[in-house]
């Protein structure tokens, strides 16, 4: 039992797991480009995709998830050990900054897990003036479309949209590339517009419940890394 615990908390285990993950991702980078099974990997949640995809295409991803499970355990145990061993208040920042980095990393994993279970993306072609059903309680219509530049290479574009909710009222909103609007946990994104044969807009409806976890994780990771960099730049001999 103690031997297993020592293996779990070991830095050597961390390095082996990271190496295995790198090898699996390299495999994925070789498998992905030429395999049609990956055409819709970004349109549905990851676990749904894994469920329907042959093992010959997805083995490296399934292996990576397994490695990440072990890495999560290793990270948690290592961090707890590290905090328990070094309780000198004078070195508080030194002790906690790597753990803040680790917590940020774990939040990022949670983000992927949450998205992997329940994210989705819907692509709609909505003609100007026509109501389109998105989901129960939400319909969209394009009120107006504007663009600048050549119709074949638009440099700026935006769409004024109507949407109605279950309250029966009609609301308006303007969306453009990089400026979506968010309603009821959904993001409404303008991807493209077309004026031929009739004005229409390609809209993406996106649900990413893991995004907030990713953002918090990124913030914590950054705070921890900045602290580490400041400390280590001053004195590389400082042990964390």
């Amino acid at each position: 039992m103690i031997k297993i615990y020592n293996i779990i908390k070991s830095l050597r285990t961390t390095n082996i797991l990271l190496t295995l993950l790198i090898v699996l991702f390299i495999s994925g980078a070789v498998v992905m480009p030429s395999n049609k099974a990956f055409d819709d990997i970004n349109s549905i949640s990851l676990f749904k995709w894994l469920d329907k995809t042959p093992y010959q295409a997805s083995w490296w991803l399934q292996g990576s998830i397994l490695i990440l499970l072990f890495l999560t355990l290793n990270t948690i145990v290592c961090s707890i050990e590290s905090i328990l061993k070094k309780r000198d208040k004078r070195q508080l920042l030194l002790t906690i900054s790597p753990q803040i980095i680790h917590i940020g990393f774990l939040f990022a994993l949670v983000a992927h897990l949450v998205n992997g279970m329940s994210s989705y993306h819907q692509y709609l072609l909505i003609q100007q003036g026509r109501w389109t059903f998105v989901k129960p309680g939400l319909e969209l219509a394009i009120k107006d479309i504007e663009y600048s530049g050549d119709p074949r290479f638009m440099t700026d574009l935006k769409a004024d949209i109507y949407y109605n909710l279950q309250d029966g009222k009609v609301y308006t909103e303007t969306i453009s590339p990089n400026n979506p609007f968010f309603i009821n946990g959904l993001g409404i994104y303008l991807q493209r517009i077309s004026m031929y044969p009739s004005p229409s807009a390609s809209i993406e409806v996106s649900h990413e419940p893991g995004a907030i976890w990713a953002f918090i994780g990124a913030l914590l990771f950054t705070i921890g890394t900045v602290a580490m960099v400041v400390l280590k730049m001053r004195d590389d001999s400082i042990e964390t």
Partner: protein
Amino acid sequence: MISSLVLNLYLLAYTIFVLIQGGYILSRGMSLGRLPLVGLHDTLIFLSFSTALFALPFYKVIKKGRGGLLISCSFISLFFTVAGTFSRKVETPLPAILKTFWFELHVVLSFFSYGLFGIGAILGILYLIQKNRELEALQYRAVLLGYLIFSLSMIFGGIWAYLAWGTYWLWTPKELWTVMLWLVLTLYLHLRYRPWWKKGKGIAIVGIILYFVVLFTYMGVGLLMKSSHSF
């Protein structure tokens, strides 16, 4: 051994080279009305500039091997400059999806980090030749600072992707290689805590190998594979 007069003259020429590159990037940006960060020409020149620029603070700090650092950085920077000069320029206006400061932050920080990883690789090579521990310690600092900046570039890229495409993560070859590079960096930082790696040549070699991963992530993926980052 290079005499200090020759080294100082070389440093002067090098600094002028950096200023000329910076000036070119600025003038190109002003003529385009945006940061020149799209396409091989602009990104290679920016990479050349980043590498040359970040060598200067390390030159100031280093005690032995200054000449080696400066000359190596010159060659690498010059190589990228020449490659960039013969690469196609993108003169068209930016598509709407790229008109956001998140994109600009993402790309600028990426190339700043690549420059630092290049410096780290050079310091690693110099360490293997001269066996001077200071050089390995400086390699570590270069990679650690590059790690922070690279991580930030990934975060800003994720924010941009979320605002542009409704997701902070896309399964494409570029994203996969980016995460791989980040994992190699993480591995480097964790290996260095192991005494066998830190005291020997191993960690310096990892620091050199990761630069080749950087170059493939930057250029190889964009040129050879279809992804959201294709040139």
